[in-house]
């Protein structure tokens, strides 16, 4: 009897799930009384399925047409949020209701990042002071002097960026659940006017012969190649600075490539940027 009952229950459950899948609809069927929690859960499971697909960017024209149709001409021309932080920042439409809790979360995140950066910051200050002392105390000449002055200028600029209101800091962390280089980390700092940036990476594994790490700026229209760099020794730190960022930037990633001059990412993704923190 138990086996018979079990089969009947199973058949009922099969029918119920089959019906639910067949009748998946954004609206409640007419006559539906209340919401069955299990049906709700299964509907959410179905709603999650498309997340397994690689995201696809529609053409910008779709957004323009849509907003023109709803009378949002101003919004139609508004740039899509530049960095991945679009979700992390309070949107105008989210309203004041979420402003305080969101601000609290951002403040906590900011405190963590700034605290971490402060350690770096102190280190940078010490390096600058030491360089200045060395420059004053020694008589460097020619190329050495040029190099020392360039390093001093670079450090000063980085410190200035780290204290600049409106600058953005992104932490790049290992990508995926089983990252190839789990210890690797990088920090990217973008100037408030987005005219220049610098990236500092650490604990990246040394590159095999012929391979190099490459920075990618992932935009609404595709991946834009950035500089490539090699790491030759264990636990080496790297620093890269450059000017300009592509329009419509969505996120930043670093891959390990066989061809450092490749135009599209081909190698494994090593690091990927999290939401940026904007310095207030």
């Amino acid at each position, binding site marked *: 009897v138990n086996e018979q009952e079990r089969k009947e229950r199973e058949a009922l459950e*099969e*029918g119920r*799930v*089959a019906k639910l*899948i*067949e009748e*998946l609809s*954004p609206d409640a069927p007419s006559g539906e009384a209340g*919401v069955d929690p299990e049906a*709700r859960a*299964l509907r*959410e*499971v*179905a*709603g*999650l*399925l*498309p*997340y*397994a*697909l*690689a*995201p*696809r*960017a*529609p*053409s910008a024209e*779709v*957004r323009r*047409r*849509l907003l023109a149709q*709803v*009378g*949002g001409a*101003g*919004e*139609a021309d*508004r740039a899509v949020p530049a960095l*991945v932080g*679009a*979700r*992390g920042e*309070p*949107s105008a*439409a*989210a*309203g004041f*209701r979420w402003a305080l*809790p969101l601000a609290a*979360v951002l403040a*906590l995140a900011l405190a963590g990042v700034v605290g971490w950066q402060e350690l770096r910051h102190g280190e940078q200050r010490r390096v600058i002071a030491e360089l200045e002392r060395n420059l004053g105390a020694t008589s460097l000449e020619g190329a050495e002097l040029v190099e020392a002055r360039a390093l001093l200028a670079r450090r000063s600029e980085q410190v200035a960026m780290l204290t600049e209101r409106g600058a953005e800091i992104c932490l790049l962390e290992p990508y995926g*659940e089983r990252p190839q280089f789990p210890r690797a980390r990088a920090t990217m700092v973008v100037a408030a006017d987005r005219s220049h940036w610098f990236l500092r990476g650490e604990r990246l594994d040394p590159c095999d012969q012929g391979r190099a790490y490459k920075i990618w700026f*992932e935009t*609404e229209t*595709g991946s834009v190649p950035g500089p490539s760099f090699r790491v030759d020794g264990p636990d080496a730190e790297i620093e890269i600075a450059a000017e300009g960022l592509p329009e419509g930037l*969505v*996120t930043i990633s670093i891959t390990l490539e066989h061809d450092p001059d490749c135009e599209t990412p081909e190698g494994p*993704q090593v690091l*990927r940027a999290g*939401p940026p923190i904007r310095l207030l």
Partner: protein
Amino acid sequence: VKSREKSEQQAEDAALIEGIVVRRAEALADLYDRYSHLLMALASRVLGDPADAEEVLQEAFLQVWNQAGRYDASRSSVSTWLVLITRSRAIDRLRNLRVVQRTATAAQHENPETHASPRGVQNVLNAERRFRLEEELSKLPAEQRQVLEMAFYGGMTQSEIAAHTGIPLGTVKTRTLLAMRKLRTALAEDVDQLR
């Protein structure tokens, strides 16, 4: 922290729907920026043609604009509501185009990795969710994944799947149930955050 961020996303989504109800175009723009990549991927998967998918995407968001007041938070999260609107419109178009056969074949043979591209990932949480979904779907036996994809992306009824594949209807139903049960268990955390 991530759990809190996800909860905040749900709350912000709901606030955007409220904004749309009172005809604030910027709320629609924000919602579009959040979900257009996901929904474009869905429409493209159903229809196979980017131009058709873009039309469906536009229609879906127009429907959101016109029917935001009908959104019922007790029935589904905003993201699921958007997915179901887009899916319904894409499948309607699919049926109109009379290309059910083509898509069903694609659903059987397509390797999801052929879509793999890092482009347009809007945020890290979505990327994490994507990898989890990919992983959980890859754990399903191929025959269970097949019926699920034919039903969800092909819009086929269980009887149509049975007729198309030559599998007994009872077996199709069993496979669908098993697939949904496994996903329900594996994705319990995501589902709870959406409720």
